[in-house]
């Protein structure tokens, strides 16, 4: 076993009665990296997370955290792991300070309370009872509990759900700091920006399977750069050029039908430039104006929508 594999999931299946929430997924998280599991609600992220956290045994397949079975050897694994559940579980009648102190008393090697509260930007709320915190503050208190014991590995299940944009940025800053200090992080999110901002590598889950995985660049590669423009009224769809063999996809737009080309190939390659030249030459030859002309590189959103957003459309294309 390579030493730097902190989390290893191989062929994991997870069933609830007749329903198979996770259908054979594999991934690994290496030491010191942040790995994001992306997916819509119901994609199987939380089930995967709770299996890796050791709350339930795998129906099939293997899960290893720090080389151990997180369910059977729960206590041995847990002392190196910090967990932030998707839903809090805070005692409503304890203050922020009391909540952190409780955790400091039950975990080994706890850090000072003030240091932890500083880190999650809750120091000024220390005397407030948990029931009076905002949703975002509750999530940050939950994060504080997860990091109280300086864990080697951190599992964050939708850490910023329900937060306003500013609170989200604060949390990202905290998480980046933890990764910079050498913490290995596995997080789930349905915010694409979160994965783009934080993840070294990611996997997109849909309907219980991993559809795409890799670094952000790897995931974007093959999903291509995009060129789009409104189809001039004088031009018929059949006449549109095919730069580098890319087929135009026609969709309805505000000012008329829009043609979009998806250029596969390396994301930073010369593809866009050449395709654009070809298109512009074509337009010049015919004295056409390409209104709304736009060229951009693929975003995670493109990939995500293609994988998860319109599965029916995806399948119809094949």
């Amino acid at each position, binding site marked *: 076993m390579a030493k730097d594999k902190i989390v290893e999931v191989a062929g994991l299946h997870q069933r609830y009665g007749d329903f198979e929430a996770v259908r054979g997924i594999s991934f690994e998280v290496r030491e010191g990296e942040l790995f994001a599991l992306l997916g819509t609600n119901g994609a199987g992220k939380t089930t995967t997370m709770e299996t890796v956290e050791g709350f339930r045994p795998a129906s099939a397949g293997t899960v*290893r955290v720090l080389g151990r079975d997180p369910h059977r050897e729960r206590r041995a694994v847990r002392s190196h792991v910090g967990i932030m559940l998707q839903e809090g579980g805070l005692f409503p009648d304890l203050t922020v300070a009391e909540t952190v102190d409780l955790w400091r008393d039950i975990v080994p090697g706890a850090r000072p309370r003030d240091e932890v509260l500083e880190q999650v930007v809750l120091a000024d709320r220390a005397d407030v009872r948990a029931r009076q915190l905002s949703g975002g503050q509750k999530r940050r208190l939950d994060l504080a509990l997860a990091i109280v014991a300086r864990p080697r590995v951190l599992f964050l299940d939708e850490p910023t759900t329900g937060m306003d944009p500013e609170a989200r940025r604060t949390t990202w800053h905290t998480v980046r700091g933890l990764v910079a200090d050498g913490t290995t992080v596995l997080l789930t999110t349905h915010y694409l920006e979160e994965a783009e901002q934080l993840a070294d590598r990611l996997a997109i889950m849909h309907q219980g399977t991993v559809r795409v995985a890799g670094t952000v660049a790897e995931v974007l590669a093959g999903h291509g750069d995009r060129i789009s423009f409104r189809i001039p009224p004088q031009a018929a769809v059949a006449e549109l050029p095919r730069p580098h063999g890319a087929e135009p996809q026609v969709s309805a737009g505000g000012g008329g039908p829009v043609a979009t080309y998806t250029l596969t190939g390396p994301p930073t390659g010369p593809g866009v430039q050449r395709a654009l030249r070809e298109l512009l030459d074509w337009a010049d030859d015919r004295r056409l104006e390409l209104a709304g002309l736009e060229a951009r590189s693929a975003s995670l959103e493109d990939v995500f929508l293609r994988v998860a957003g319109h599965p029916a459309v995806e399948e119809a294309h094949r």
Partner: protein
Amino acid sequence: MTLTRTRPDAPAARPVDPRRLLRLARLDMTLLWRNRTALFGVVGLPAFFAVMLLVSDGNGHQSAGVPAVLYTGTGDLAFFLLPAVFMNLVSVFTARREELTLKRLRSGPLSDAEALGGSVLGATALYLAQSAVIVVIIATALDGGLPADPVLMLLGMLLGAVVFALLAMALSGVTPTVEMAQLTVIPVLLVSMLGSGFMFPLEEAPVGVRAVAQVMPLTPAVEIARTAYLGRDFTVDGDHGALGLVETWTACVPALLTLAAWIVVGAWLARRYFRWEPRRG
């Protein structure tokens, strides 16, 4: 494939760390103090029974050959298992499951035994404190003396606490909300009040009723508490005669065995019905 290996540097995983257990018991006391509704339930009922002893003192009523206040007072020592341990823990476990704090506690390095044991310890401490108040009332205001066999009495009380903690775990599993806990405890509460002999002697009851009452979970706890306190045979079939030290224990053997049997049954029920997390969907 990765083989599971035991590493020499692994921390010796002790299932129960007394320090953590005490910390969690203290947490329960803090939370109980801040939740006035729960506090009233856990402390109010025993306080009512204690006051009843004081106001009934000297009314001349007799139960099974002893002053009724002594009879009920020694019964209270077992009956307080209901409010302090059973009803209290059904609420605590149900509320914590639904608010996900049980799961949260379990997400740290606590063992399952610790996550639940802290609450059991806190509830038992509360029960013993309430019982201590009753002992003081019996010994002073009621002039009933101190327990004849405190060791046996304490053993019976602790076994009773284990029984009712296990039953509370099981019942919490079928109690959907903390509000519903007020209702789901009622059958056990009624059976324990009427059929345990803690206040109303079972001697007069028909043989069939008595046989059933004898195997109810609170009955053996009442038999042991009263017999050990008064040093006379107050088991359900007992003749109330004075007993020596060894005889007291011998008389209580069936009751001790009944409690042991309830521990087995309670553990099975708890395993079967207790839930750490809310139902999905």
